């Protein structure tokens, strides 16, 4: 089963390698990983998408917690949360496809961020499923290149997590 996990870590030298090494060393899956500092610059927040059965997920949670630099681990699986991912996609745009590309981008509330006589680059954000959907629609037009950020996630509701809470 797919799990989205947030890991709050000390923003220290080598911390990304510790987390990535933990996954590779123990044979855990990483589907995506994104990381950046939080409001408190001494803390980084990673969002990891992984998969495995309950036993493996329990180990992943515990092993992440065991790292000295890990401050908090949040598994969003059983929590109301939202996930957003950013995707930049460069699509072939010739006379035959130009209008259709724009229409698709529009439906997904995408933005054209770069235009050339032969291509459009579209920026789109959304839950991973939405990104998958627009990619599938654009694929027949000819995708030249694409990049996805991997999802970031936050719990729903008024409560927030801060260091020291």
């Amino acid at each position: 089963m797919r799990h989205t996990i947030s890991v709050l870590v000390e923003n220290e030298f080598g911390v990304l390698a510790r987390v990535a090494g933990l996954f590779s060393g123990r044979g855990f899956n990483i589907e995506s990983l994104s990381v950046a500092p939080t409001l408190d610059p001494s803390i980084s927040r990673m969002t990891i998408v992984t998969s495995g059965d309950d036993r493996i997920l329990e180990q992943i949670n515990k092993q992440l917690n065991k790292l000295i630099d890990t401050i908090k681990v949040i598994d969003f699986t059983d929590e109301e949360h939202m996930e957003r991912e950013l995707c930049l996609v460069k699509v072939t745009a010739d006379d035959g496809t130009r209008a259709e590309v724009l229409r698709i981008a529009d439906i997904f509330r995408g933005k054209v961020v770069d235009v050339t006589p032969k291509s459009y680059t579209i920026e789109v954000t959304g839950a991973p499923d939405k990104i998958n959907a627009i990619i599938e629609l654009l694929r027949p037009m000819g995708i030249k290149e694409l990049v996805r950020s991997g999802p970031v996630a936050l719990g729903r509701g008024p409560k927030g997590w801060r260091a020291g809470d």
Partner: protein
Amino acid sequence: MKLTGSKILLECLQREGVDQVFGYPGGTVINIYDDLMDSPVKHILTRHEQAAVHAADGYARATGKVGVAIATSGPGATNTITGIATAYMDSIPMVVITGQVPTPLIGNDAFQEADIIGITRPITKHNFLVRDVKDLATIIKKAFYIARTGRPGPVLVDLPKDVQVATTKFEYPESVELRGYKPTYSGNLRMVEKAAAMILAAKKPVIYVGGGASLTDAHAELKQLAETIQAPVTTTLMGMACFPKRHPLSLGMLGMHGTYYANMAVTNSDLLIALGARFDDRVTGKIATFAPHAKIIHVDIDPTSIKKNVRVDLPIVGDLRDVLTKLLKELGSQTDEVAKLAEKLKPWHEEIAVWRREQPMSYTPSKTIIKPQFVIEKLRELSNDDAIVTTEVGQHQMWAAQFFDFVQPRTFLSSGGLGTMGYGLPSALGAQAAFPKRQVIDISGDGAFQMNSQELATLVQYRLPVKIVILNNNFLGMVRQWQQLFFNKRYSQTCMELPIDFVKLAEAYGATGLRATKPEEVEDVIRKAFATKGPVIMEFKIAREENVLPMVPAGASLNEMVLAS
């Protein structure tokens, strides 16, 4: 007052109560070595950095204190790796200090540069690169704190040369705050109550003890628990000396080379009380058939150990000594129930007694060739109760575990998790440095001894009177045994074609060498060795193709043992 980084390091070591370090100098630690000359911290120069780390490990296991090793950058640092991994697998508190090239050169493939932080990340509990001398004291404080608390382990501190030279005001922090690291010491009382209820309900309980009992010095509480609930006790290799084997409740070791009766008891038990153990595959055999009828209580300070390999019915995270103390208190409040246990468990003890009679730990004695088991028995007989025994890895290690009756905690030092040949001699060195007056014995094989035999020089130089027993079968015996049993006796690369004269080897270093080739010489050699002041090699030419039995073949169930007879 401002101090240099290297002086600060030595000051910190003193504040941490370190009186003995092990190491090897080189270009990037030359400043530290210069300052060592004026420091009360004693340093032992080993002949290899791996040995320095094993020595620190032996020191830590024997004393319970944090072991400290120092090595230079590059090759010095990479030589420490096996030692660090050995300590990591067995949760040994240790701080390893490595020199590093100056910070501006890091990443440039400078002379003797190695990314030791990257290399040791998966084999340390934590590691630090010190980039500013102002952080040094805090980092050392954190390193010791992390190494000795929670589930202990090795911590590496990489110290670039320019940081050792730079100066700053020295202030040693009183305490450390690590917001991501808060080990759980206190066992949950409700869980402890549940454990007591499960214990009182069990008809076939077995206590299964691992290295956690040694690390927390919980032997007294363990004995009290076993006697209170009248449960038989089996230990892993790491838990070996925590429960006296001569105790009527002792089942000896379980697992691959465990006793028949320990493995049968575990397989038939209805309650397995796992204390500071981690269900290693050498212990469980085939997981699917491990303790199939048992409910499992698992006490461990490391949550990741729990439910990693086996299902657990009652997990208790906490310090073993704390949990046992609470458990004993809880049981103490139910004296009526506890009093019934002896009677209730009688059938269980009778069942075990039958297994004991059927297959006691035994071997076929010989009047003509030296049996290794006989040497071990004689060693026990002729050594002091508080003698510290270290081992290398191989058949000799298993014979030591099977036939040496340990009576005191922290007297058996062996590489359990990593299984490191070459561990025994340097760890004996470290233990002897900690306890100059006690007997320290390295039980070794002819193969493994040669992995760190250069440490004979260290023993002689520092007058460390370690007694080395080489059970010489001229084979990499343990591998040969597997080849005999599972590869049609095809002895690929396990015969040590060149016989070594270990007596002469000892003499070359200025140590004493003794040899026994017949059973009747064994006792005499051991007596002579113990009567000799300095380090001694006792070489025993043993039955070459003797096997370690019983044996659970890798991947088989615990009750599928190859037996001695």
